[in-house]
């Protein structure tokens, strides 16, 4: 159990039966008045963000969350299917839940799935993933407006900025935390 004075950025608490993470926090106390704990809270299931202010002496349940090592299997109509390699238990996460992360999944990839009870609510990817460029216009010499970068689309459908020398068919490394190009992979 947490109390108001435990609230801080990064803490995960239960509100109305759903897990929330505190993304912004400030303590304030006007003059001789009561302390206020101002929180920016993100619902860890829906992703929605809202502000709430608490007073001293309020209590909070920690959000019962667990990270499990799983393997990405495949995608079907129900969503993205992951499996616990030890128990063979499977969980399905929707594209909406995964957000941009779904672009960086490759077959049999080892990820950490964040579980709220038996519900998967998010994943942690490896920091780097290699994907093949499937479409990128050739760089036009003299086009300095865009600097030395140009857009490219990779096999998963994700589009990012790459250096002008990257051509279709090139395998590139992407940082999954920022979604940005890192380097060319020589095969």
């Amino acid at each position, binding site marked *: 159990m947490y109390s108001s004075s435990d609230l801080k950025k990064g803490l995960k608490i239960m509100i109305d039966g759903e897990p929330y993470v505190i993304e912004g926090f400030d303590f304030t106390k006007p003059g001789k008045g009561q302390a*206020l704990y101002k929180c920016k809270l993100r619902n860890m299931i829906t992703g929605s963000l809202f502000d709430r202010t608490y007073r001293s002496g309020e209590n909070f349940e920690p959000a019962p969350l667990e990270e499990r090592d799983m393997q990405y299997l495949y995608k079907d109509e129900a969503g993205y299917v992951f499996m616990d390699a030890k128990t063979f238990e499977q969980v399905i996460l929707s594209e909406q839940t995964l957000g941009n992360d779904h672009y960086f999944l490759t077959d049999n990839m080892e990820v950490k799935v964040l579980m709220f009870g038996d519900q998967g609510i998010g994943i942690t990817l490896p920091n780097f993933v290699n994907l093949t460029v499937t479409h990128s216009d050739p760089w036009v010499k003299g086009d300095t407006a865009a600097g030395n970068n140009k857009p490219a689309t990779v096999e998963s459908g994700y589009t990012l900025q790459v250096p002008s020398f990257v051509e279709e068919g090139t395998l590139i490394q992407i940082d999954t935390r920022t979604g940005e190009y890192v380097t060319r992979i020589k095969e």
Partner: protein
Amino acid sequence: MTTCPDATRAARRDNLYARARIIQQIRAFFIARAYLEVETPHRVPCNAPEEYIEPVPSAGAFLHTSPELCMKRLLAAGYPKLFQLCRCWRHAERGTRHLPEFTMLEWYASYSDYLDLMHTCEELLCHLIPTGVLSWQEHTISLKPPFERIPLAQAFTRFAPMALEDTIAADCFEEVYTEHVEPKLGIAAPVFIYDYPTSMAALARTRADAPHLAERFELYIGGMELANGFTELTDVQEQRQRFNAALENIHPSDPQSLMPEAFLAELEQMPPSAGIALGVDRLVMLLTNATEIDAVVAFTPEEL
């Protein structure tokens, strides 16, 4: 990425130099006006009982939350004008504008009232900022005296969706005040908010013509509360009653255990006086264009 501690210290170098200069200028200001600089104990048997200020225990006693009681005992002993720059401790107060250990400037003058204090605030700020213009974040704040004076109730009428008395009745004064009123105060020029309800002023004298109001004010600059001052309550019986009311809420089982009896015993000797507490860290924030209190101290509690 974690910042190396040396880098944190280096990034604050200019602010720490500015801080030292500001503190020297504050001293010079009060010494030039014949205020006596005093030091009173930081570790005390009890503080002024206030419902929302929690003292830090220290080996059977407490660290002071403010030097207020000792300063007033010196007034009672016949020292007419006093100031002190000291560290104060308030349990679990930590935010972008709060440190649980912070630096306070307090000054007191006999035979004066809260209007005189407002005047001294104006003089002090003009002394610290001779150009008369303070640039803080996106604000350009003119320090030309006199600063605007707004009664608390009127500040609610002007800036809040609810009236002051309605927020008190609905028990949401702090929420509405910090959300709607505070951020608007002292943006183009400093503002004094005054005439607080007596219930919000544990040690202030009530107005003779309006006993439901206390002669208390706060100074705001850039939406930030900088100082809290008032005409001192000198009526011993009334002071005891107000302490009692606070202690009933703090220590219902043993309300008398923390009654500042030594202070009450000497209060009768205190001439009519006024005193004020100003947050030095926040003042340094304003003068160094800092948005977080962390940027103006050598070490935060988390860095120890």
